[in-house]
């Protein structure tokens, strides 16, 4: 039965950034690929995002940010992910994140960062390939 469970994924918009075109497109593409997608809506604090992830019992969190506030917000989100024991949840991100920031973001535990122009198929494929195994 457990293996029949759909992949549950939270698409989240941290901070004040209001660009939600990409987040919504990715959410829809993941849903079309058969996943259970929860979209937070805009302007979520790190606390709200991690709380929703916990409540919704998700396997994956996708963060979308285009405002440049990732350097302030991602460390806090990842800190809370660890604090709340969501260590088996896979986190990826997308948006406008300069190349030179990517190593630092990955060091926080963010599995992958998708920049502008990424085909949705690449993201869907990535999630399928990196979905954490539930025990």
């Amino acid at each position: 039965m457990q293996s029949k469970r759909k992949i549950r994924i939270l698409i989240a918009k941290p901070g004040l950034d209001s660009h939600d075109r990409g987040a919504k497109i990715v959410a829809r593409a993941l849903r079309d690929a058969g996943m259970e997608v929860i979209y937070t809506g805009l302007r979520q604090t790190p606390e709200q995002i991690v709380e929703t992830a916990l409540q919704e019992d998700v396997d994956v969190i996708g963060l979308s940010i285009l405002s440049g506030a990732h350097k302030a917000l991602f460390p806090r989100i990842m800190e809370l992910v660890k604090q709340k024991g969501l260590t088996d949840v896979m986190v990826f991100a997308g948006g406008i994140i300069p190349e030179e920031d990517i190593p630092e973001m990955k060091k926080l535990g963010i599995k992958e960062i998708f920049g502008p122009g990424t085909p949705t198929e690449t993201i869907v494929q990535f999630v399928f390939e990196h979905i954490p195994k539930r025990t």
Partner: protein
Amino acid sequence: MFDEEKINEIRKERERWENITLPKWMGQRLERKSEFRNHSDMLIKRIYTPEDIKDLDYMRDLGFPGEYPFTRGVHATMYRGRLWTMRQFSGYGTAQQTNQRFKYLLKEGETGLSIAFDYPTIMGYDSDHPMARGEVGICGVAVASLKDMEILLDGIPLDKVTTSMTINGPAAMLLAMYVAVGDKQSVPREKLGGTTQNDMLKEFFAQNLCIFPPKPSLKLVTDIIEYCTRHLPRWNPISISGYHIREAGANALQELAFTLYDGITYVESAMERGLNVDAFAPRLSFFFASHNNLFEEIAKFRAARRLWAKIMKERFHAKNPRSMWMRMHVQTSGCTLTAHQPLNNIIRVTIQALAAVLGGTQSLHTNSFDEALCLPTEEAVRVALRTQQIIAHESGAADTIDPLAGSYYIEYLTNEMEEQAMNYIQKIDNMGGAIAAIEKGFFQKEIADSAYKYQRETDEKKRIIVGVNDYKTEETHPIPILRVDPKVEKEQVAKLQKLRRERDNRKVNEVLEKLHYATEKDENLMPTIIEAVKSYATLGEICGVLRKVYGEYKELIVI
């Protein structure tokens, strides 16, 4: 324009051409696609002829520039008289940094200012609000009080330079600060020129920067229209914006229709306030996006002018021709620019800017080639400005008015745009208007569907984006990136806290109290807000009073 006999002759000749000449060529080479469509999903024919515009009536549908229905332009001399205003949207970091950028742009030949505010300012939060963490000065300039505005506009003569402010939820507060700086410079209020975006409706379904619910938001928009009509005759109280609708994913047709519908709603609201349509309508301004499909965009701009003129005349019975003018600002499209091979963006911006000029815009912002990566560096913004200057002075596009008029294709597309936009307008009328459509999620769904379709077409390579899904190169060409120093936030917070300590707090509290009262009494809030900013009440404090009375908007999520 063509008599029936002539049209019949052309039809016969076309049929002959299709039956005899064309098959010979098609036999050798099939067309690149089985069908061609533009972004608005209109089927594009192989060729356009007088048949496609056989009902076009020159005087009724085109006329002369500066005259109804303004298809050919709102001014009689257009760019032969004065070029469009070159207005680059800019702002980052502290007020001081942005002030320097403004002065740089003016020195390089820019002819108007356009302020980009940071997210906390746009959302009506002070720079030290918990939600502001990591966002201060990042996407625009931080303006938390009149103090910041004074620094931002330092040394800029407000009686000579016009300023556009991209601000919506707190438009009244930022306009109040601008007025206060003008007062300090002893510029008479009737000389202050500029624009507040102040278009809340599109925020609810496109740009998503909403503070208050739709009804009080519309009330504030109308307060500004009323105040400007009475006290700031050179100020455009609103810039009815399609740009964000388009960037959120709408196609050109949806952008046109939804923007015009928002315009209708503001006119109705101002008339309900008791204003005479001819008193305020001449100061309504518009803001559109320009994308890569050159002809589609040009047709959109021309159709927008004609349709608005008709709406003002027929729906609202405006008498003053100026009330029927659609004056527009255009910005090239951010979402068409790519992070891959960023120099290619210069070419995209050129095409888009040319469309805006051939479409008869009054003002233009050209995006910088590093748009998909960061806020523009000085070099990138200079190239963007030079693009406008090259079009203005070297291309010849500005030498005659509406040069594409009479093109079978352009006139056909202009007609299509107008007719199909009108269908949307009727549909929204039947839904009960813009607010009802927002509450039903109609606009949101339309936009989300178009955005998704565009992405699918790109993913499936039905749509080629050079350097992204075709013509890719392995080698990367790194370009310099502008970064805002994280110190900006600390400095800004310290400055704000110092202000709160040093100002006359008794006076601030009094005026905030008065504002609270005026808000509850549903008065026009502009005069009290001006008083509040002059007492150095902060943006967050002023918005806080309104948040208490109006409540906050809760996003309606439509995927």
